C-alpha cells in the first residue's frame, strides 16, 4: 500500500486498452447457483451498466469483483494481468473499489474515520492524530463536493442520503482503476451530484460499473449495458441502439405467455375480505387496495419498495403509523399475528425467511404444520405423536406433501418440502385470507407447481390471497389482479390479460405504465398516489 487514501496520480493515466475483463465466472452455494456464467468487460473511462431482475446474480458478481466472494470458476483480468482478489483489501490494492448497496459504513465512527479505515495512522506512526484524521477527512469531502458534511460527525447520526454519498465518495477515493456502484441512487433524491462525481472519475480513466434498476438513469449516464438473467450474462448492448423493449426482453427472457387461470368474475357484492386504506410507515407512503372473496391479488415490486413492510403490517407484525385495515368490512386493529388470525375470517401469513421466521428446525414436519391449532389436536391437553400426524395429513395433501415426511425433523427435509409444510401450515390455520410473501422462493419447479395448485384451489373455494413474488412469471400465471409497488406507493395496477411481464417490468422500474381503463391516467414522470382508490 502506497498511500492510505489509495488515490492514484491523476496525470499519468491515459485511456488506452486498459480494462477489467471477467469470463466464465461462476459461484454456487451448496446446491444454489448464485452465478452460473458471467462474461463482462469494463473499459477504462467508460460507464457500463449491469442490468437484471432480482436474483439474477448482480450482487454476487459485485462481491466477486470486490474480493468479498471467491468464484468457483472463471477468470478475471485487470489491465492485462490476472485479477483474483481474495479480500477487500487485496481488491483495494489493485485499485478496485465498491460502493455497496447496503452501505459499508461503521455507524459509531466519524465520517473521517470511515474514509480512512482500516489504516488511520500515517505509515510508520503507531498513533493516530485525531486532528490529522479530521483534516484528511475534510480534504476528501472537499474533493467530492461534500463540504457541507462535518468530517467529525458520527456516521450513524447522519441521514441516509448523506451516508450513501459518503459511501460513494469513499469508493471513488479508493478506485483508481475500477469503480463499482451498486444501486447508488437507492436513497438519493437527485442524481446531479452523483453524475458529476462519476464524470470526474471517468475523466481520470476509471472503469465504472453502474448497477441500477432505474433505466432512465442508466440511459443518462451509461454507454453500454450487460444483462444478467438467472445467473447468466445474456449479452452486452450499446445503450444508444437498444430500445427499452429490447432491454426488458433481455431481462425477462421470453415473450411466451404462461397458461393463465381463467379470468374470474370480479366485483362481488359483499364487502372485501381485506382492505387497506392509506397505510403508512415501515416503508409505505399511503397504500390502499381491496382484496375480494376468491381473488388472487399479486404484488410486484423491485427489492425494497415497501412490499416487506406492507406484508408485515397486514400480518400484524408491525403497527402502521397511519391509515387503517378493514377485515370483512369492519375496521380492524390487531398487533400480533395471533390476533390477525382471529380477526374476522382470519388472516394467515407465510413469512419471507423460511429458515428464521418459518420453520422450527428441530421439530417434526407434522408439528410444524399443526402449530397454529395445537390445542385442538390433543386429547385432554395431551398430544400424542400420531395425533399431530393425523391432524396434519389433510393439509399436507393439499400441497402434495408426501405423508411419509410428516414424521421427520423439518430441518432435515429439502427446501421444497419445508416450503410445502409451511404452506400447509398457512392453509391449515383455517384463515380465509392468506398473505404469501414470495411463496416459491428458492424451490424447484415441481414444488412450485404444487404450491400454485394449492393457491388456486384455495381461491376457487372462496379464499382470498395476497401474494408478493420476486418472479414475474409467477405473478403472470397466478394473479387475477396485480399491484405494482414503487417507492412505498401503489404505482400501477394491472388486471386480467394486462398482466404481462414486460408491462410489469416497466411499471416496476417506475417507468410509465398505461393504467387499466377507468383509472385516472398515470404519468410517466413519477409515482402516483393510491391508484387503487379510484378503482370503483
Amino acid at each position, binding site marked *: 500500500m502506497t498511500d492510505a487514501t489509495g488515490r492514484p496520480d491523476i496525470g499519468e493515466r491515459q485511456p488506452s486498452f486498459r480494462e477489467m475483463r471477467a469470463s466464465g465466472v461462476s459461484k454456487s452455494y451448496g446446491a444454489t447457483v448464485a452465478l452460473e456464467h458471467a462474461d463482462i468487460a469494463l473499459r477504462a473511462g467508460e460507464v457500463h451498466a449491469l442490468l437484471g431482475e432480482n436474483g439474477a446474480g448482480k450482487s454476487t458478481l459485485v462481491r466477486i469483483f470486490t474480493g468479498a466472494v471467491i468464484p468457483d470458476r472463471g477468470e478475471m483480468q485487470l489491465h492485462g494481468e490476472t485479477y483474483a482478489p481474495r479480500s477487500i483489501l487485496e481488491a*483495494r490494492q489493485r485499485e478496485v473499489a465498491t460502493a*455497496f448497496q447496503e452501505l459499508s459504513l461503521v455507524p*459509531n465512527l466519524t465520517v473521517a474515520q470511515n474514509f480512512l479505515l*482500516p489504516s*488511520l495512522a500515517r505509515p510508520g506512526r503507531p*498513533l493516530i492524530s485525531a486532528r490529522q484524521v479530521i483534516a484528511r477527512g475534510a480534504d476528501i469531502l472537499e474533493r467530492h463536493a461534500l463540504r*457541507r458534511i462535518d468530517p467529525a460527525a458520527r456516521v450513524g447520526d447522519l*441521514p441516509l442520503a448523506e451516508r450513501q454519498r459518503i459511501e460513494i465518495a469513499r469508493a471513488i477515493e479508493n478506485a483508481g482503476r475500477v469503480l463499482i456502484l451498486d444501486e447508488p441512487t437507492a436513497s438519493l433524491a437527485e442524481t446531479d451530484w452523483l453524475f458529476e462525481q462519476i464524470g470526474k472519475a471517468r475523466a481520470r480513466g476509471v472503469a465504472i460499473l453502474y448497477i441500477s434498476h432505474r433505466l432512465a438513469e442508466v440511459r443518462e449516464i451509461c454507454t453500454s449495458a450487460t444483462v444478467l438473467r438467472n445467473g447468466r450474462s445474456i449479452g452486452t448492448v450499446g445503450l444508444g441502439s437498444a430500445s427499452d423493449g429490447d432491454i426488458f426482453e433481455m431481462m425477462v427472457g421470453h415473450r411466451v405467455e404462461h397458461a393463465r387461470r381463467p379470468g374470474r368474475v370480479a366485483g362481488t357484492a359483499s364487502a372485501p375480505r381485506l382492505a387497506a386504506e392509506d397505510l403508512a410507515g415501515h416503508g409505505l407512503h399511503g397504500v390502499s387496495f381491496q382484496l375480494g372473496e376468491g381473488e388472487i391479488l399479486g404484488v410486484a415490486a423491485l427489492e425494497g419498495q415497501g412490499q416487506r413492510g406492507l406484508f408485515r403490517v397486514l400480518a400484524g407484525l408491525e403497527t402502521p403509523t397511519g391509515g387503517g385495515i378493514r377485515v370483512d368490512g369492519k375496521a380492524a386493529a390487531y398487533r400480533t399475528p395471533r390476533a390477525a388470525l382471529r380477526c374476522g375470517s382470519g388472516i394467515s401469513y407465510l413469512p419471507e425467511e423460511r429458515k428464521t421466521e418459518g420453520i422450527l428446525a428441530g421439530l417434526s414436519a407434522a408439528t410444524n404444520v399443526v402449530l397454529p391449532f395445537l390445542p385442538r389436536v390433543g386429547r385432554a391437553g395431551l398430544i400424542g405423536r400420531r395425533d399431530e400426524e393425523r391432524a396434519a395429513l389433510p393439509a399436507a395433501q393439499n400441497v402434495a406433501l408426501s405423508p411419509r415426511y410428516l414424521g421427520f425433523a423439518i430441518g432435515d427435509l429439502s427446501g421444497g418440502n419445508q416450503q410445502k409444510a409451511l404452506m400447509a401450515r398457512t392453509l391449515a390455520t383455517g384463515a380465509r385470507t392468506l398473505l404469501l410473501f414470495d411463496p416459491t422462493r428458492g424451490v424447484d419447479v415441481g414444488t412450485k407447481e404444487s404450491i400454485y395448485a394449492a393457491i388456486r384451489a384455495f381461491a376457487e373455494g372462496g379464499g382470498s390471497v395476497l401474494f408478493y413474488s420476486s418472479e414475474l412469471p409467477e405473478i403472470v400465471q397466478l394473479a387475477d389482479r396485480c399491484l405494482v409497488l414503487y417507492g412505498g406507493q401503489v404505482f400501477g395496477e394491472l388486471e386480467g390479460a394486462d398482466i404481462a411481464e414486460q408491462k410489469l417490468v416497466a411499471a416496476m422500474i417506475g417507468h410509465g405504465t398505461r393504467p387499466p381503463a377507468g383509472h385516472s391516467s398515470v404519468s410517466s414522470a413519477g409515482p402516483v398516489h393510491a391508484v387503487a382508490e379510484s378503482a370503483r
Partner: protein
Amino acid sequence: MSDIATTSAAALPAARSGPAPRHRLWRLTQGAGLILGLYVLLYALYAYQQPRALDAYAIAALMNNTAPLALAAAGQTLVVLSRGFDLSIAGVISLCNVVLAVYPLEGPGGALVSMLLCLAIGGAVGAVNGWLVAYLRLQSIAATLATMIICQGIALVILNAPGGYVSEWIADELTGRLWGAVPVSGLAVAAVVGLWLLVRRTDYGVALYAIGADEPAAALSGVNVRRTRFLTFVMAGMLYGLAGLMLSAQTATGNPNSGAPLLLLSFAAVALGGTSLSGGRGGLFASVMGAATLTLLQKVLFSSGVSSFYTGLFQGVVLIVAVVFSGLLTRIGERK
C-alpha cells in the same frame, strides 16, 4: 452546480450538516463522566462516615481491594467492546493465583518472573479463546466457558484445596506504598489505563470499536476482523493475568476458586461503566471506575454496619439504577 458549491461554501461553517451540537448532559454519558460522579459521591459519603478514609493508608487499602476487579473488568471491557463475552476470566485468575502460591519466587527478580508468568498464562488462554472465536467462529460464550472450565480444572490439579503462600516480596511490595504515599496497586491500574489511552489511538483501537458496532460493514471497509478479535482476546487474557497477580498479592495465599467471584462482578463493572454489552460503545476507564464503585460500595455498606449478606443486594440495585439512568441520559441526549 459550481455556483451552488461556492455559495454554500460562503455560508460555512454554520451550514455543515450533521448532528446538532451535543448537549452537555449527553456528553456526560459518553465516557466515564457519570460513573466518576457516582464514585465521588460515594467517596464523600464514605469520608463522612469514616474520617480516616482520606488517610494514605486507607486509600492504599481501598486501591488494593479494587485493583483485581478493576484489571479484570478492564480486560472484559476489551472483549465486550468487540461484541463478545469472556468467561475465561475466572479460570485465568484462579490459575495464576495457584501458580503463584505453589511456586513462590522471592525477591524483586522473582516478582518480575512471576508477573511475566501471569501475563504468559493469560496471553496463552487468550490466544486459545481468540483462535476458537475469531478463526473457528465459535460463539464467544461457548468457547470461553470451555477454557474457563479447563483452567479451573488445571488450577485444581496444581492446588486441590486453599493453601500455599505467595512470595513475601509480592505480598508486601505490591500492596504497599511508594514513598509512603502512592499505592503500587493504584499505579498498576493507572498504567493499564494509560496504555489503553494509547491503544485507543491506534488502528487497532479504531478497528475494535468498528467490529463491535457493525462487523460486516467493518469487514467491507477493509478491517481485518479476525486479527482484531484475536488480539482482543490475547490482551484481555493478559489483563486477567495481571488481575490474578494483584489478587494473589492481596490475599497472599492460593485458592483454586479465587477467580470465580470476579466473573460476574467484572460484567457488573463493565455495565456500570456504561459500556454497551452489545459492543462498540464504552471504554476501559469507565469499567475501571465501575469496578472501583462496586468495591467502594462494599466498604461503605460495611462501615454503615450493614450485614455483608446484603452487599450483593445493594450492588445489584446500584447496577440497575445506573444502567437505567445512563440509558435515560443517552435517550435525552439523542433527542436533542
